């Protein structure tokens, strides 16, 4: 899923402080699961903002809504009738949702309420970690199903670098060295010999280097 983190409230305040009436829109997908932008967080943010503005002598009306998803037209349509009354929307969806809402409702400023972080997993309750950078050319088959692009600080395809220490990355003791993981797993799979196969120079064009990407499935298109 997409993992996001709540934006510091002061940042949101700074963006919306000049409006009078705003809508906080949550999303019941990834951001709910990663506890950054579900209905509950909408409530928490709304309550905190109301208090802030009262406390700072400002009249601010704040409403709450949580959509099933903000990355689909149909769900975004649900607020068409009410959205007109707001000066701005703070979307707690990922960056995708924020943009999609903005594309749909062109006259209303939409502000992000979360920092969209990465695609990752819930390692345990309250701990999410990155697993994929969407490079568009999956190499996991060559790296014991552990992605050095998303998990090595230097994205080394033929790691590890000399900074790998006790299984940890040189940049942080809390970060596993992806290449250590790869090697460990290769060992477990009894395929350590694969390590010596050089990974070729990567074609990054399917990653962001190639510009905005698009997937089109003609076979399913309506």
């Amino acid at each position, binding site marked *: 899923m997409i993992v996001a983190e709540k934006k510091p409230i002061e940042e949101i305040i700074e963006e919306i402080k000049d409006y009078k009436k705003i809508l906080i829109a949550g999303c019941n997908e990834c951001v709910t699961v990663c506890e950054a932008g579900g209905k509950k967080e909408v409530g928490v943010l709304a309550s905190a903002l109301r208090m802030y503005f009262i406390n700072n002598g400002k009249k601010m009306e704040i409403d709450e809504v949580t959509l099933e998803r903000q990355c689909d037209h149909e769900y975004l349509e649900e607020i068409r009738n009410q959205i007109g009354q707001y000066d701005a929307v703070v979307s707690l969806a990922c960056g995708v949702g924020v943009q999609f809402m903005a594309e749909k409702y062109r006259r209303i400023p939409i502000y992000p309420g979360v920092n969209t972080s990465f695609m990752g997993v819930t390692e345990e309750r309250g701990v999410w970690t990155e697993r994929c950078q969407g490079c568009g050319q999956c190499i996991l088959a060559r790296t014991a199903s552990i992605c050095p692009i998303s998990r090595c600080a230097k*994205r080394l395809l033929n790691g590890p670098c000399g900074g790998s220490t006790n299984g940890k990355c040189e940049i942080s003791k809390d970060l596993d060295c992806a290449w250590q993981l790869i090697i460990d797993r290769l060992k477990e799979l009894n395929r350590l010999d694969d390590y010596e196969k050089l990974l070729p120079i990567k074609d990054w064009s399917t990653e962001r280097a190639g510009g905005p990407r698009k997937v089109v499935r003609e076979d399913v298109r309506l």
Partner: protein
Amino acid sequence: MIETKTPSKLEKILSSGHMAVTSECGPPRGSNPEAVTKKAELIRNHVDAINITDNQTAVTRLCSLASCIHLKMMGIEPTLQMVTRDRNRIALQSDILGAASFDIHNILCLSGDHQSFGDCPTGQNVFDLDSMQLIQTVRLMRDEGKFLGGDGIDRPPQLFVGAAANPFADPFEIRVPRLAKKVAAGVEFIQTQCIYNLDKFELWMKQVRDRGLHEKVYILAGVTPLKSAGMAKYMKNRVPGMDVPDEVVHRMSGVSKEKQAEEGINICVESIQRLKEIEGVRGFHIMAIEWEQKVPEIVERSGLFPRPKIEM
């Protein structure tokens, strides 16, 4: 390995069976070239080539290529260090050509320290290639005269290709395979991480020999004289991939503060003497960090002086 592939003096010394001695200089954080040239002057008679580091520890400095050019102009043989952190494949190839245009003949291919250690931790890194792929790239450009994109190069670069190896980094079991991988990528000489744990290094070398890698690549053992007990401890505890045994730290702390520098030199000399005996060690890379004036003493006391004269 009698034949050489490049005009590199270093390659020549090595291929003729001599113990090579290299050292390195860090460029200044400014545009005054004297910082490099003065250092180089101090050691030019005692070493075969001088590495110029490339924004070492991710701190922005005078560029490696320009510094190499200063040395070259002084008649000193430089080794251009090049990290893949800061340049994509276009810039890398372009700089290689730049070096070649000044007849710089040695290159050391590195991935580079992560920018989070340096002065621009919020910067983006590139890592379009990794060090292995840079090795491959240089060899492609030199040997096949081609760019990565496949186009031909007019006057391909003549670079003796080196890389680093760290016998002490984790995971230990892939230290030798990793070297093998670099060899497979086309590396011709290796400068190792500073060696303090000689036992472990010997073990590594044994495995290197077991695989016959010592016959495919010149291994220059890296040494760094310790200036103080504090430095020893710092290296032990703080520098990733550094293995400083307790005995070394104890030995440094065992002498009075004034004598510690001298003790550091002693250890370094003793190490070189022991390393010389190891089969497959083909030279030394002396990294006297901001202590270049001591390099001559080390080289002399280690019996590596005078340096052989090579016909260019």
